């Protein structure tokens, strides 16, 4: 029977009044007294269609808190190892020691979190049977493995007091892998079909790098006497500033895909992250030279980093659950005709 499908355009609509099959994109305003700062650039209220309101891309099966915790620990460990190596060369033994311990503990816990997240943890070593540049998780495995080995060994020899030369060498090796360890996690999230993560692919490595420095610097501020903690303080404040600035771009630059960073639980987490990080950075600048101020601001900076990881993680998760985050941006780019590739639809 072709009676129903002959007319062009045809004006067909989903027949039932079932769950949100054909609906407006839902221009939502912030409720009540929030400040205007961070107001989202909402897209126009466009109507779109979906298959009975069901999501199109799958929600990642990555577990919380495993993965956001891993993002945090890896970042803190990575930035701490860099700080420790540079401090080692400029003769700051306490800062060096704390940095190395943070790197070792953070990386070992990272491995635990990462393995625990696997559906088949006993097959963790299968990660090492191939090396693929196209898989950030594969690349990450080959960053995390040498990093945690070097950082663990460095911390061990430092604690035991053996082979002081090996200490510096191990510290340098872990510092080399430290930066990539902290920033590759941005690629890990962005290189997915998760709409709000992928849209921010140029920013997430910088957000996570900044956040890592805030966390690593903050943790060092807590444990290092203030007279030696100057570099940690500076790195933490700079990192926090970078994190806040780039995160602001993530939250405002991507139209409807920035929306999940403002709404619901991820929105609350992001708001808490920004407040905590800003408070930590401010306090570190004002009172970071006092012991109490250093401990308080260091804790705030680390907590802010942790909240950022949870917020970004959950915002991505939220963006998979509503088909509008898949359909509307794709429709927009089709309409704009800015794609270098052809449409997947042949008419």
């Amino acid at each position, binding site marked *: 029977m072709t009676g129903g499908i002959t007319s062009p355009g045809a004006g067909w609509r989903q027949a039932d009044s079932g769950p949100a099959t054909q609906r407006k994109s839902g221009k939502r305003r912030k409720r009540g007294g929030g400040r205007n700062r961070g107001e989202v650039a909402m897209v126009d209220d466009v109507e779109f269609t979906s*298959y*009975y309101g069901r999501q199109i891309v799958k929600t990642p099966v990555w577990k919380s808190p495993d993965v956001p915790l891993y993002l945090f620990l890896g970042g803190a460990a990575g930035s701490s190892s860099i700080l420790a190596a*540079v401090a080692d060369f400029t003769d700051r033994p306490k800062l060096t020691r704390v940095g190395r311990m943070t790197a070792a503990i953070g990386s070992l816990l990272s491995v635990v979190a990462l393995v625990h997240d696997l559906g088949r943890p006993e097959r963790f070593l299968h990660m090492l049977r*191939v090396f693929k540049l196209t*898989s950030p998780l594969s690349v990450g495995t080959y960053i995390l493995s040498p990093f945690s080995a070097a950082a663990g060994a460095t911390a061990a020899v430092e604690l035991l007091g053996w082979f002081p030369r090996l200490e510096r060498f191990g510290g340098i090796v872990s510092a080399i892998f430290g930066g990539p360890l902290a920033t590759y996690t941005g690629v890990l999230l962005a290189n997915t079909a998760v709409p709000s993560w992928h849209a921010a692919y140029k920013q997430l*490595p910088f957000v996570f790098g900044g956040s890592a420095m805030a966390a690593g610097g903050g943790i060092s501020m807590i444990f290092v006497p203030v007279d030696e903690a*100057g570099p940690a303080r500076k*790195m933490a404040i700079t990192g926090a500033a970078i994190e806040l600035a780039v995160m602001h771009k993530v939250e405002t630059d991507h139209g409807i895909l920035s929306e999940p960073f403002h709404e619901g639980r991820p929105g609350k987490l992001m708001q808490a992250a920004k407040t905590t990080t800003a408070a930590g950075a401010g306090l570190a600048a004002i009172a970071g030279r006092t012991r109490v101020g250093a401990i308080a601001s260091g804790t705030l900076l680390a907590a802010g980093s942790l909240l950022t990881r949870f917020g970004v993680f959950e915002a991505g998760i939220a963006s998979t659950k509503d088909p509008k985050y898949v359909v509307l941006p794709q429709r927009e780019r089709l309409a704009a005709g800015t794609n270098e590739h052809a449409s*997947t*639809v042949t008419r």
Partner: protein
Amino acid sequence: MTSVSSASPGLGGLRDVKNRLFGPLPDVAEEAGYEPDHPKRVGFFTDTSVCIGCKACEVACKEWNTLPMDDSHGERDALGLSGMSYDNTGQLGANSWRHVAFIEQSRAVDLPMPTFGRPGDDRPHEHGIPAPDSGDLDSTAKAQASVLNIEALSEFDPQTGQTGADKQIRWLMSSDVCKHCTHAGCLDVCPTGALFRSEFGTVVVQQDICNGCGYCVAACPYGVIDQRKDDGRVFKCTMCYDRLTDGLQPACATACPTQSIQFGDLDELQERADARLATLKSQGVETARLYGRDENDGVGGDGAFFLLLDEPEVYGLPPDPIVTTRDLPAMWKAAGTAAAMMIGVAVSAVLGSRRR
């Protein structure tokens, strides 16, 4: 044993091949490392214009691949109605490798008033139900009053209480499946090599290798592959790899009673699809279109492509899927720059601080 390559096109060795991450690839299997004498690339052409929604494909797939039962949200061993349409499978997932989407649509029909006979009576009556006495102005009311009049029932909307005489209903049915993309996001991001490109150009999971990291689940732009929660590993359509190696067709294509699911060499299927599209267009089916046929699209073309009668998103398909790894070089660049930035900040933080 045939050597199996789990390397994605991005790591094809030293040979000079373009479009490793994006764009058309003339020979996916060779790009994945197979010798030139590998079998031709095979695929599915799912012609939804002849799908009758019987779900024989789903059943055949479940039987052949011994897939466990699940409900429309992928919950294992649960029997549940979706409550939205005749579709209780709901989605593709770890336990449903074929999914028949069922879309009920209506549209308003612009009719001249007053009518002679009920609107639509001038249409040929395919249902074989005789039209109620035409010409009677009250026929609509009469038809509604008659419980036995099937057509009247079908056109009477109990929710609004209005006659559906100015409304038409149609059903769209489409058997969805893994697209076996030319640039498969799942394959690109798999860190264990469990996902591999078969000699037939299809994308298959090696269940003895998969460690359940879940990266492929997040990377698929179509939301096909999923993890079996109690098992931990991921599962998806293999295009019946075991049957292909034995020279058989995939179970779903064998079971399809209307040839809506056609299996064969991909180039041949593409020709057939182009011809079918032209036929439908010439018959006035203006809304017919192919989905995933164009090898210049965001995933380099699909190994399993479709003929649709409405926009892709109506069927739960993304309107412009792009393989996520297209942007990966830019991402690595950003990560590298960010890592260098960290070292720069740390060094200047140390140098900028007074020595004790």
